[in-house]
């Protein structure tokens, strides 16, 4: 079983961190994972793409060729990465930024990721963790336990509870 995930958005949204956390969660599940990214020279703004491949077997080619999951946190990302999707690829968009849905036959989940982060947690900063909660809620690509553990391993001390809540907010978006 091999799952390819592509997280895309704008620099600063934390999509790379989200992909790293997901890969770490996969290792906690005793699976293999490879994570990579592409970014421009800007530290903030500009487009950002992170990929994660999770498999029970060895993973050689490290880039996603046919995603099973596309997370688009910006309109540009939704437009750019929705071409040539496999039929079974699910698309998750952030409603705040993606106003024009891609014209594809794939199943699209329009989720209020960033708004929920702002409303429920007070900061858009948590949107990547909310997104992770939603992605894993939908796909079960890693276990909830490992995901939470991986999140808590990475986030700054003192923010653990907020991050746990962010995961729950994400899961609730896809209930």
């Amino acid at each position: 079983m091999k799952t390819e995930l592509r997280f895309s958005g704008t620099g600063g949204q934390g999509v790379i961190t989200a992909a790293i956390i997901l890969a770490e969660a996969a290792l906690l599940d005793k699976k293999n994972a490879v994570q990579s990214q592409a970014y421009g020279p800007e530290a903030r703004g500009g487009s950002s793409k992170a990929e994660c491949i999770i498999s029970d077997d060895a993973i050689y080619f490290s880039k996603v060729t046919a995603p099973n999951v596309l997370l688009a946190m910006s309109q540009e990302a939704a437009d750019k990465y929705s071409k040539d999707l496999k039929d079974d690829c699910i698309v998750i968009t952030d409603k705040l930024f993606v106003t024009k849905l891609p014209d594809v036959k794939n199943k699209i989940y329009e989720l209020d990721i960033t708004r929920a982060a702002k409303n429920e947690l007070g900061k858009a900063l948590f949107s990547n963790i909310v997104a992770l909660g939603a992605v894993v809620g939908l796909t079960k690509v890693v276990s909830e336990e490992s995901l939470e553990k991986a999140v808590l391993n990475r986030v700054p001390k003192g923010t653990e509870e907020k991050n746990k809540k962010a995961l729950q907010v994400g899961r609730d978006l896809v209930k």
Partner: protein
Amino acid sequence: MSRVLLLQGNQAVVEGAIAAGCRFFAGYPITPSTEIAEELAKQLPLVGGKFIQMEDEIASIGAVIGASLTGKKVMTATSGPGFSLKQELFGYACAAEIPLVLVNVQRGGPSTGQPTSPSQGDVMQARWGTHGDHWMIALSPSSVPECFDLTRRAYEFSERYRVPVILLMDEVVGHMREKVVLSDDYENLPQPMRKQPTCKPEDFLPYDGGEDGVPAMPPFGIGFRWHVTGLIHDETGFPNGSPEATVKAMDRMYHKLADHYDDIVRVEEFKMEGAEFAVVAFGGAARTAWDAVTMARAEGLKVGLVRPITIWPFAQKHMEKLATQVKGILVHELNCGQYVGEVERAVKGKVPVFSYGKYDNEPATPAELLAEIKKAMGGVK
């Protein structure tokens, strides 16, 4: 005990360096190798080592040469234009036989090129970037665990043969994150050591290679008071302009590596049993090749992968033998075709050698490489 970590290739290089006993790093920020400097700035003081950000790339390799003379295991890391700048003193390290590890996380070139894109465009520069005939070692990892292992091996070779070693990385491996299992206690790992003189200081000949061609190298400050120069020198270490001394010095530096081919040149084979056609790929490009060869085999094509881990010295004997085993060879690399020329030279026309160079800022996908394999196999009679 061991730790299971998700690490970037660049971070695994840092872990390998610390594990091998590297205690001095000098560098200059440049994408995509900067993480190595950042991480060593953090980690070296924790083990009593030192990090310094120098004023430029030349100064960085100068400083590691200086620290190496005091007996430290040293590293510098760079990319793209920085690799060009380091060539001057890399040549000095070859001439004066100074152990050091130079990491080059390759990026697209020439010039500023494509700073964040994968490339293997420095294969020939690694070999011939500095002026004059010289001999060195370059190793190319294909995975994050191998970044750790080959960094340690780079120190082993560097210390054993008194030679600068290039860790020839690429952005694919440098920036990807992958599972790596590391020991909790690096002190229990074998530490590469430099040969030390067994004679009295007054009898010491600093560039006498002895039986294996590798001179002993005592650190500065313990009584041997030797002279280090980039001029051609004889056993005494002092400049000697005679034709005999020049030939003797050059021959010794050549033989100290060439005579240890079997130790230094490592090549890995994948699905080569019964293969009639071989793909040659290294570093990040080999990851594509592993999948492409697996796909080809699934379709019944008798294809295998030959993956040079040691890029320099060139895997001459391996490639000569390969030419007798298969009907055709496809060299895949992330450049316009560099390593392929060396393969052609070794194969001497015995079998056709095809080149699939990719230089569009993206690694080839397994499907793309498979298509190239089929095309090439179609041309093999």
